[in-house]
């Protein structure tokens, strides 16, 4: 077994080449880890909003809250189902909300982008305990006031504490508070008074969706059967978590697919880089290899040694790349969600699995890149090698 220090010192002695190769691999790992973190962030952001014990009710056939519409009268019918949890005052724990989007000037671009506005009843914070005001105050009921999620704050014209934007002509709504909601997609929304929002959008006496908290997650089926059996309602029931997963599907798949293509191509490039470096290392060290063989090291240990060196080289680059990618967790990425047609702000979520996986990927690049050169080294006849 050739000692590890031999490989480490060989790498150190050829520092320019080592650095160039390792940096190439670092960049590949950086891009790969960032893409994985982003698509993880997208799923996380959209799915965090969902609770297992909450069911969402939409009009049958509607994929999104935005395309759904339910008459006010039916909200009571749905909420009075016996599977729905009661609050302390005996009222059902349910909200009927209206969801619309408004086009606002996006800062830093010459275009506008869509922001989701949710018309919420007064007790919305009671229904969503994870949401809380972090700046300013809650909106007064019935008024022209909204609170904004911290994910959209400052990204659009007028979407900032103390400023205002228009829901209809001459009817500006004032931003009085900023809320956070556990990093979920709600943080990319603006919440206004239910009646003010639906009046502005000509949706009087309609809501987009009803959310109910069930007595237990297991009650979903019974609740769904009850609602869907009533054909007059024409509604359909989904678990909130499931609904949100569907919402994130398109965007997450798109980013993941693009990221995978990029990562595969990048890694081929980096692998070739590692291969060039290792071939050169083998060629330059013919004499050393011959000497090692003459000293009694077996072919297998030469093979192993060069593979180890290549993996070390790649891992070094991988560590730098993965470390740099952790900096991305401080950045936010705001893009349009294909399903809801509105902007959602995402974070890059790192998990030990992603970082570990990226490092394993770097090691694999080193292994594959180093394999052929190592085979060449191992097959060198010692006498000729020493004579070279």
């Amino acid at each position: 077994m050739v000692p590890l220090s031999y490989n480490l010192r060989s790498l150190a002695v050829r520092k320019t080449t080592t650095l160039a190769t390792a940096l190439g691999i670092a960049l590949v790992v950086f891009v790969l880890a960032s893409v994985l973190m982003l698509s993880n962030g997208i799923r996380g952001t959209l799915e965090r909003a969902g609770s297992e014990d909450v069911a969402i009710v939409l009009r049958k056939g509607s994929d999104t809250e935005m395309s759904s519409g339910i008459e006010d009268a039916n909200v009571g019918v749905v909420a009075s189902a016996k599977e729905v949890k009661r609050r302390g005052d005996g009222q059902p724990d349910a909200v009927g909300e209206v969801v619309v989007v408004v086009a606002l000037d996006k800062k830093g671009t010459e275009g506008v982008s869509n922001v989701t506005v949710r018309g919420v009843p007064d007790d919305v914070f009671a229904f969503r305990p994870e949401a809380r005001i972090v700046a300013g105050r809650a909106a007064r009921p019935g008024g022209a006031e909204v609170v904004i999620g911290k994910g959209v704050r400052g990204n659009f014209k007028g979407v900032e504490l103390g400023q205002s934007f228009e829901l209809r002509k001459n009817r500006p709504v004032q931003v009085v508070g900023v809320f956070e909601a556990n990093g979920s997609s709600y943080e990319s929304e603006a919440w206004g008074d239910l009646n003010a929002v639906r009046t502005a959008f000509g949706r009087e006496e309609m809501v987009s969706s009803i959310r109910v908290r069930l007595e237990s997650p297991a009650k979903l089926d019974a609740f769904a059967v009850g609602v869907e059996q009533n054909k007059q309602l024409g509604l359909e029931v989904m678990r909130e978590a499931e609904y949100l997963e569907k919402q994130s599907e398109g965007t997450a798949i798109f980013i993941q697919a693009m990221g995978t293509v990029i990562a595969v191509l990048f890694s081929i490039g980096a692998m070739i880089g590692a291969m060039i470096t290792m071939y050169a290392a083998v060629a330059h060290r013919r004499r050393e290899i011959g000497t090692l063989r003459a000293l009694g090291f077996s072919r297998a240990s030469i093979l192993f040694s060069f593979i180890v060196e290549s993996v070390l080289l790649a891992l070094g680059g991988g560590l730098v790349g993965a470390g740099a990618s952790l900096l991305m967790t401080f950045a936010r990425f705001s893009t349009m969600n294909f399903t809801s047609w509105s902007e959602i702000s995402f974070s890059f979520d790192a998990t030990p699995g992603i970082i570990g996986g990226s490092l394993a990927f770097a090691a694999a690049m080193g292994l594959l890149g180093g394999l052929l050169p190592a085979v060449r080294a191992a097959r060198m006849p010692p006498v000729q090698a020493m004579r070279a």
Partner: protein
Amino acid sequence: MTLFGLALRNLRRNRFRAILTALGVAVAILTFVLLRTVIWAWNVAAEYAAKDRIATRHKVSFVIQLPKRYIDDVRAIKGVKAATWANWFGAKDPKDPNNFFANMAVDPASFLEVYDEIVLPPQQKRAWLENRRGAIVGDVLARKMGVKIGDRVTLLGTIYAGDWPFEIVGIYSAARKSIDRSQFLFHWEYMNESMPERRRDLIGWIVARIDDPGRGADISAKIDSVFDVRDAQTITMSERSLQLSFMAMFSAMLRALDIVSIIILVIMMMILGNTIAMGVRERTGEYGVLRAVGFLPRHIATFIVGESIALGLVGGVLGIAISYPIVELGIGRFLEENMGSFFPYFRVDPKVAGAALLLSGLLGAAAAILPARGAARLSVIDSLRRVE
């Protein structure tokens, strides 16, 4: 022998390494071309947008519809040649609910007049105008759905609930790259008459053709001022601005692709620079000999840079050559079929290919700067003394 000839000869000395390097460069350039093509294709809709078309929508949000009588007001404005309207229908194919395609309710006669780059054979056009349940589809969508003229298709409504039967009466193609060839278009009247009273006579947006593209901004302002005093205000912009504003929603994604496409070039430079540096190190003695027989430092530098440029160009040409079949037969077709609304035309643009070729040469030169400078600066004695 010229210096450049000598440089080329040098490439063949370590043929294996040169091939590997060229392959590495090729993969990098391929990735670069793919990424730039995504960005370019995203811009296609804006770049090839008709200059004489302007679109009017509700000022606050695309989810609020306009009264149908607005179309008459737009037609009455001086400078407007023709105007049409459409509603986003958003239905799904029940047989393949994950297949997203644009389906819109339009007024066929005026629609074809305003969008005259939609190519539809005359008898199919006549059939569409006469058949209220008739629908036309783009050739890309027709291939994907497997429908032909005379087929009956039922769509499942999401925004407009229910089952909607149609008969395919025409298949269109496009004379302009910005037209999405996977749309499903049908009679607005057919949809409107099935609506309950309160949802009747509402339209999604208006598109007008103007006689002088130069006056687009004036006419747009005029239209908006007419509706400013009505109950629904509008915003009118050119087709180009509309597309640009659509892209603004994805600005973060486009910027990310931009950055990644630069990173791959950096990786490519590292692979190339590494190879050149290795060659230079191995040949230090020869440079000493060349200097001793009278070649100047700049000659040495020239043929090192020349070798690098040649290697870069070989890899570049190879990469571009691979990118064509991959895009034309693989990715491009897939994206046009599945994401036609985003990528109506996904092909390698000659400008992108040209830029890639230029960059592979330029970066080849840049990658050689450091090794070339080092080699040129070495004194004759030093280089002759250096033994690798």
